[in-house]
Structure formats: C-alpha cells, structure tokens
C-alpha cells in the first residue's frame, strides 16, 4: 500500500438548482464521516451558499474572508454534528460568479494546506455552469452529478456534462438520481441514467476523445424526511435515522469509499 497522496476530492454539481444537491452533500459527508473518513465540505457556491443554514450553524467567517486574505482558514472551519468539517461560504456576496486568476490560486493554496488533514473533500458547487462551478468540477477527482427525473433537471445536467466534456475533457461522471418514485427508485434511477447516457453517447462522442460515461452511483427516493430535516436544520441521521433516503445516502457513501475507479479526470487545461 502506498501512502495516500492527498484527500479524494468530489465535486457535487447539478446544473439545475433545487434538486437536492446541498442536502445530499451534507448527509453524504456525514455518512462518509461515519465510515471513518475524515471529511471536509467546502461550500463552493460563492453566490448562494447555504449549507451552513441547512445545518443550523452560525459561521464566524466565510470562505470569501479566507480567499481575500482577511482570515486564516483555521478560523472559519466549523465542526459539524455530522462528524465532518465545513468551510462555509458567504451568501449573496459580491464574488458571486467571479473567478479571477488570483481567486483560483487562493483556492488551490488553501486546498493544499487543508488536504493532509482529510480523506475526502466535497465541493458543494452552485447551480448553473458558471466559471466557479466549472473550476471546482475540474479541481475534483470525481464529479457527482445530482439530477431529478424532471426534464428540466436532465437538460441542465446534460448541459453541465457537455460543457465539462467539451471544454475540459471530463469523461467520467457519477450520477445521483434524487426524488425518484419511492415505489421503484431503482427503475426510475436507471431510466434516467440510461437516457442521459444514450444522449451523451449519441451527441458527445468524439473520435478524438475518450467516451463520456455516466455511472449510476446512487438513487434517492422522494422522502418527506428530507423536508423535515431541512425545516429543523438538522441532518437526516438526527431527525429520521431510518429514513429511506438516508439508507440510500449511506449506500452511496459506501460505493464512493470502495470505488477504485477514477472518475473525474478532467484535463487541467
């Protein structure tokens, strides 16, 4: 066994907002932590950050404060009840969609500093396919694409894959299908994954690049427990430890932990 070079980085992206990306990130981080991974969540949504709100936390500083050099990163790191750490971002701040070269460098430097302390780092990227989202996706080893079976979600997810594939050569994506029919989540999830893969294979295949692949990594049923947890600003494991969605999130954590296959692999161009 070679020593672990650095933490495994996951970018959680969706294209469309409101598909459950942040809730999944928080609960997935808790599930990874419960499996013994030292886990850090970076709220990479510099415009509409809200993971601290979902967890009922009151940050003393934000990622923007660190990137602007006003605060050391240690001062804003929060320990959560889920056993993972959180780097909160400020919501509604000016830096919303900007990614200056200086900002990108600060993020890289910050990650290199933090990396030795963690096994897994999750970037909760914002909605859309702005430069900040694309930047964090490229920084990641694996890209987790969260979708719902809604056509608008599929469209935006596909647009995200297309941009990442065409512009940066990303060719492996892990798919998490949220809000599936609770009577048959598997079928619902497979349908979505198959459809996405079909369209990708048909339109994004390019003789000069590697084929773009969607790997179905997780399927979450619509679960009223999620709404309850959000309303109480808590994790599912605190409010509904037996919620079907939580079982699925734990399974997702297990599959990420055991996955040896590299996913993200975008070119660094």
């Amino acid at each position: 066994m070679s020593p672990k070079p650095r933490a495994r980085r996951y970018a959680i992206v969706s294209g469309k907002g409101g598909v459950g990306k942040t809730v999944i990130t928080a609960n997935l981080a808790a599930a990874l932590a419960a499996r013994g991974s030292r886990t850090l969540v970076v709220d990479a949504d510099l415009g509409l950050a809200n993971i601290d709100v979902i967890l009922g936390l009151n940050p003393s500083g934000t990622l923007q404060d660190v990137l602007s050099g006003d605060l050391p990163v240690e001062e804003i790191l929060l320990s959560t009840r889920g056993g993972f750490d959180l780097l909160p971002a400020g919501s509604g701040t000016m830096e919303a969609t900007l990614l200056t070269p200086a900002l990108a460098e600060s993020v890289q430097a910050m990650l290199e500093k933090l990396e030795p302390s963690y096994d897994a780092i999750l970037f909760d990227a914002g909605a859309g396919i702005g430069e900040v989202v694309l930047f964090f996706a490229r920084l990641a080893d694996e890209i987790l694409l969260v979708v719902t079976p809604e056509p608008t979600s599929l469209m935006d997810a596909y647009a995200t894959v297309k941009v990442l594939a065409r512009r940066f050569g990303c060719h492996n994506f892990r798919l998490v299908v949220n809000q599936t029919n609770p009577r048959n989540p598997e079928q619902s999830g497979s349908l979505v994954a198959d459809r996405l893969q079909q369209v990708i294979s048909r339109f994004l295949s390019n003789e000069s690049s590697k084929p773009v692949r969607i790997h179905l990594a997780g399927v979450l049923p619509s679960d009223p427990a999620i709404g309850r947890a959000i309303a109480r600003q808590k994790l599912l494991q605190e409010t509904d430890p037996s919620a079907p969605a939580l079982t699925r999130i734990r399974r997702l954590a297990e599959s990420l932990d055991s996955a040896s296959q590299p996913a993200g692999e975008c070119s660094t161009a």
Partner: protein
Amino acid sequence: MEISRFGFTVSRGEVKNWEGLDLSAAIRILENAGREDPTRSALPPAAQLQSLIDALCDLSMHDGLTGLVNATIFRAALASELDRSSRTGRPCALLLVDLDHFKDVNDTFGHNAGDAVLKAVGAYLKRSVRGMDTAARAGGEEFALILPECGPEAAVRAAARIHGGLNPISVPVGDAVLRVTASAGLAWNDPGAACTAQMLIARSDAELYRAKNAGRRRLSYAPLASTRVTAAEHASLVLSRSQEDSYEP
C-alpha cells in the same frame, strides 16, 4: 509638405500668421490639451506644420482623459476589423465594459475622483490587450475592446481574464482607496454571416445589459456553440410521458 512651395520663408514663431493659414485656433486647441505648441519649437517650418497636424490628428482620435481611442475611431476600427474578418474568415470579438455605479463615484467623491477611476481603468485596459487589439473609451464610463482573430473560446478566456482583473480596480483618492467594479458584455461575429459594426455593438450591448441586470460585476456572453444544448439533444433527452417516472408527492 515643403513650405517653400508656397513661397514663404518664416522664422521661428511666425508660422501662425501665414497668409491664408491662420493656425491660431489649432495652436490654442493644442495648448488647451496641455501639448506643446510646435510653432515655438526650433524645427524647420515644414516640420512645425507637420507636427501641428500630427498633434491635431492625435487629439481628434483619442480621448483626452484616458488616452484610449475615442468613440469615432472605435467604430471605424471595428468596421474595418469586421471587414477583415469576413475576408480572412477569422472571427472578431467585441467586449464592452461599463463601470458599476459610476455616477455614485462622481456624486460622492467628486469628478476628480471619477476621472482618476476612468484613467486607471483606461491604463489597465491598455496594458491588458495584445498589440492588435483596440482599447477604446466608447463614451462616459463605457469602454470597448476589439479583439480581432479571436474565436469564441479564446474571446471568452481573454474577456474573463480582463474582466477578472477589473473586479475590483482599486484607485487611491486622497487618503481613501476607491474600489470600483465593472460589468462586461462579450459578443463575436460569425465571419460567414454579414455583421456590421452596429450589429456587433448591439449584441455586446445586449450581453452587457444582461450582466447589469444579473447584479452587475459580471461578464455575460452568449453560450458557446460548442457547448450549447441543441434542439435534437433536447428532444432526445426529454422522457416521453409514458416513460417519465417523476414522482409528485
């Protein structure tokens, strides 16, 4: 031009009073712009006249405050770049940059502060572009960058870099440092399709308007063709009703 052709021989300082050549207004314009009066120089008369003409041309092409080319020259340069683009088949991009809340700067800190900001932005833009690019003051607090030989991807990269460096731009004013941000709109032509300067300006302007509306301090541009989702992709993606398995709680 040889002055002797007109039969004059003039000594130093006399050039402004040639018969039929009243240069006093031209000289006043130069002096008002803070430039030297070439007729007071030790140059031979012909060189004095040429230097006067050169200086006037230079003044008429450039914005006095920022030193960038002015709106007239910007439009002419854009038209000629678009002509070139349709000949060479290589696209040309136009980035419009507009300072955010600039009126507040003038109202709060005075027009000297506003001028200092405009100068700083002008200087930044001038050093941010390639030699073949044109940086212009399009008017008021609006600037324009013509980026020839720039396809969509390259234009987006350049625009993101230039706009990134502008946000914010810090300008010392007295003891304070003003931090001013900018919005930007980017558009490019398709060399295969007719595109006038006016059309490209309108497209960049529409993107600039979107950037302003989205909350300012942003760069806006049309989705790149290479990454835009097409109608065919859309049709293939959308699950038919019978297959759609979305769950309405």
